[in-house]
């Protein structure tokens, strides 16, 4: 709905399937609805109509808490603005999703994950003491620590310079391959999109390709 009560359509007729292990890039100009689509796919938002099946489960048949638990069990996230919790140290940020699942070896697995992204030495630093690239690597460690079946990435290099961005992407794709994760990536970077197995182009809320 827009401000005057008229229906405001952001996305329509977006119907597609992504197989396990596949990687999909969603491309589109600013305002084309790609982040909204990602939010719906991840169950972060609710559509006015339509459905999303994740591993066979209808996301919108669940309530908000049900979706949250499903995300915790199956999905990992990487955001443009990193979205680390400022109060927690790097290691604690990585431990968080494991602890939400009630894992008993959270600490060991988080240390291992930080080691994989090359940040063992920074484990006890607060996010504000880390560079942008380091913060995004912590976010990657956090995303992969639960060995998610699917990873949602929203413009993961948007706030990084080209060189750092390239490192982060390389790391992300490598972890993705190693764990056999399904990847859904939102970007406006054609070159990055081409590194994914499939591309989906959005224009004014419609899937055009």
């Amino acid at each position, binding site marked *: 709905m827009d401000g005057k009560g008229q229906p405001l359509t952001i996305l329509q007729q977006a119907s597609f399937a992504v197989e396990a292990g596949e990687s999909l890039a969603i491309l589109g100009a600013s305002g084309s609805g790609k*982040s*909204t689509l990602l*939010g719906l796919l*991840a169950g*972060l*938002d*609710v559509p006015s109509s339509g459905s999303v099946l994740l591993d066979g489960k209808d996301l919108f048949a669940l309530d*908000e*808490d049900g979706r*949250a*638990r*499903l*995300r*915790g*069990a199956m*999905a990992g*996230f990487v*955001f443009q*603005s990193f*979205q*680390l*919790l*400022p*109060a*927690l140290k790097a290691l*604690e940020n990585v*431990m*968080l*999703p494991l*602890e*939400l*699942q009630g894992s008993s070896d*959270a*600490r060991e697995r988080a240390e291992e994950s930080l080691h994989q992204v090359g940040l063992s030495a920074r484990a006890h630093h607060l996010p504000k003491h880390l560079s942008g690239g380091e913060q995004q690597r912590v976010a990657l460690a*956090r995303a992969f620590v639960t060995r998610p079946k699917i990873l949602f990435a929203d413009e993961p290099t948007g706030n990084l310079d080209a060189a750092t961005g390239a490192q982060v992407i390389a790391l992300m794709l490598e972890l993705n391959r190693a764990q056999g994760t399904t990847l859904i990536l939102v970007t406006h970077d054609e070159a990055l999109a081409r590194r994914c197995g499939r591309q989906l182009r959005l224009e004014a809320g419609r899937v055009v390709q």
Partner: protein
Amino acid sequence: MNLLRLSLNLLRRDWRAGEWRVLLLALVLAVGSLATVGLFADRVRLALQQEATSLIGADLRIVSARPLPPAYREMAEARGLRTVESRAFLSMVAHREETLLSEIQAVGAGYPLRGRIEIDDGSAHVAQDIPSHGTVWVDGRLLRRLDMRVGDEVGIGTQRFTVAARIVRDIDRAVGFYSFAPRVLMNGDDLAATGLLQEGSRITYRLLVAGEARQVEALHDELEPKLANGEKLEGVRDARPEIRSALERAENFLGLAALTAAILAGAAMALASRRFVLRHLDTCAMLRCLGAEQGQVLRLFLYQFLLLGAVAVLLGCLLGYATQAVLVGFIESMRDTELPQPSVLPAIKSAASGFALLFGFAFLPLLQLRKVSPLRVLRRELGAPQANALLAWGLGVLVLAGLFLWHSGSVKLGFTMLGGLLAGLLCFGLLAWLLLHGLARYSLRFHAQARHAFNNLARHGRDSALQVVALGLGGMALLLLTLVRGDLLQSWQGKLPPGTPNRFIVNIQPDQQQAVQDFFARQSVPQPQLLPMVRGRLVAISAAPISGDSYADPRARELVEREFNLSYAEQMPEWNELVSGSWWVSSPDKGRAGEEVAQLSVEEGIAERLGIRLGDELTYDVAGSRFSARVTSLRKVQWDSMRVNFFVIATPELLKDYPASYLTSFYLSPDQVKIGDQLVREFPNLLVIDTGAMIDQVRGIMEQIAQTAGVIFLFTLLSGLAVLYAALLATQDERINEAAILRTLGADSRYLRRLHLSEFAALGLLSGLLASAGAVLLGWVLARFVLEIPYQASVVIWPIGGLGGMGVVMLAGWLGTRRLAVLPPLAILRE
């Protein structure tokens, strides 16, 4: 552009954001607490002023503990002034089986010269005369306690009187403070027949004078140099000095409590204004971009603050007015009297204080908005213009200092109070900060939610510490007035072993000694030791004459101006303790000779107060004749032992020929109460004072003081909650963001609720424990240095403080954050 209209429009839109509500709430509480105390004190002060002449029943009064020479009366009448005499003393009033200690006022025709007495002898009216012969008027308390009605008979001394009327309103009851004993008014001519005019009876003689103002003044000047020691002139200005000083002390104490609320309100306002500024940076940048000048931007927000200030101050004054009315209702003795309505002055003073707080704590942050760079429209990371934190808090402290000085009325008191309070708050704050960081440091040992919560608290260390201090302060005040007060009372009473005397008998005449002892023997009550008492005034220390004017200390002045109770004894009372010097040697066969005959033992406290040292020679005037003796020992006396104690004890040879009366104390168990009444019936001149009843009375007064202070401290607690609210608002954006991330990572609403509740639980627990610690510490200080009793804090104060704090803060926090657990995450993350 109509700036005012735009300003009001923005204010309306912003109302929901919360900062305005915090500012308003904080300011209303601060003004409300200041106005409560100010208006309350003003009413009592006005009553004192307006009723000053009726308070003493005359234009001028001469007061003495001895009969006044007739010359005074003649001098007044020679000037064409009207005069009347009154004599007041304590005595037992008996009705059937019961007796009650009362204040008897025997007055001459024409009393009072100023003011009026209202009585009810079937119908309520202003008394036209004094009680006729054989009748008395008594106040309502006496009727209630002795369960009697107008028309019944009472016994006073050896005489019986008919109660002709109930006193509805006495002359000096206008203010609502009165002595603990109910009052009886009798005709002066009846006094002699009661047999109560005896040696040792403490009678206050008064000569009341009224008439033309110039003549009264001339009489005052003429009498002043002629007054003998112990005689005092009281004009309307000196009326009820004890009420004035009590009022001043109460106002200072309550004022301090009110200002504590103001300090916390200031902190809440500072937090709220900071967030207000942060949220309005974009608006300001855009306005600047569109061509608004710095002054216009400033005025835009200044109008809002001024409007808010005006509304808050008005509401605060109304709140203060309502609360002081409740206070007057709390205080039993004020309920019945019609206190005059307060003047508008205290309200204006509180309003000005409110605006000063607004200026001190909200103005500087506001001033920053003026300096927002228009470039921020393009580059948001430019952030807020940096205010000098030292300057901001400095201005706040400066305003507070001004308020303390203004409200305390004295530089020394104001600075001492503010300094002490700020130092205490800083210590409290530092401790809270250390505890919070300690928790965060070892947080890896805790469960995820707890760890996360502790880290959040530590990350906002300064604000969290501020909240802990604010809430702790409010909690401490409440604990002090409830639990610690109870503990102190219990410690005080627990100090008295069972069988501690609970009755004093005063005024036993020398020829009654044997009869009184026989009475006790007949009743099978252990015979108490009767101690002689001689009344005399101290006139010289080591040959240097002294009078009240020799001392600046008002208590010392009072001690010197009135008569001392002197006693003599061969042995030191076993409940006294020798501090220095030595007790006189007694050898009954040889006796003492020369200097050994004239020895005195003085209580160490009074010696210090009056500057008496071991070896000094004291000169006393007893009924016109003088004697001198050397101080050979100093004693320590347990005043609350409920035994008969004397400041000064002499060798028996020195005093035994002077006129004396005897007194003693003894214990009556609850089932022996009637023995006291019987004693008074057999010896009507005796005063039997029930100390148990007096303790009850003291406790009643303490209850009322505690209730009064409790109301004021409630403002402190509420202001503490306002700080919590402000801090919740200040961290709200962050919490919303955090909640969104957590939900994305799979946290359900239960987890989020638990996370928030753990944070508030930790905050509340810390506040509560600090409150308990502070209350116990203050209780100990009170016990050790003021009441001088051992203090055993009850253990329950810790769980009550800790759990209570936890409960209150968790509830408040849950109300403030419950929305966060159900927000959909995407909208927030995309910002």
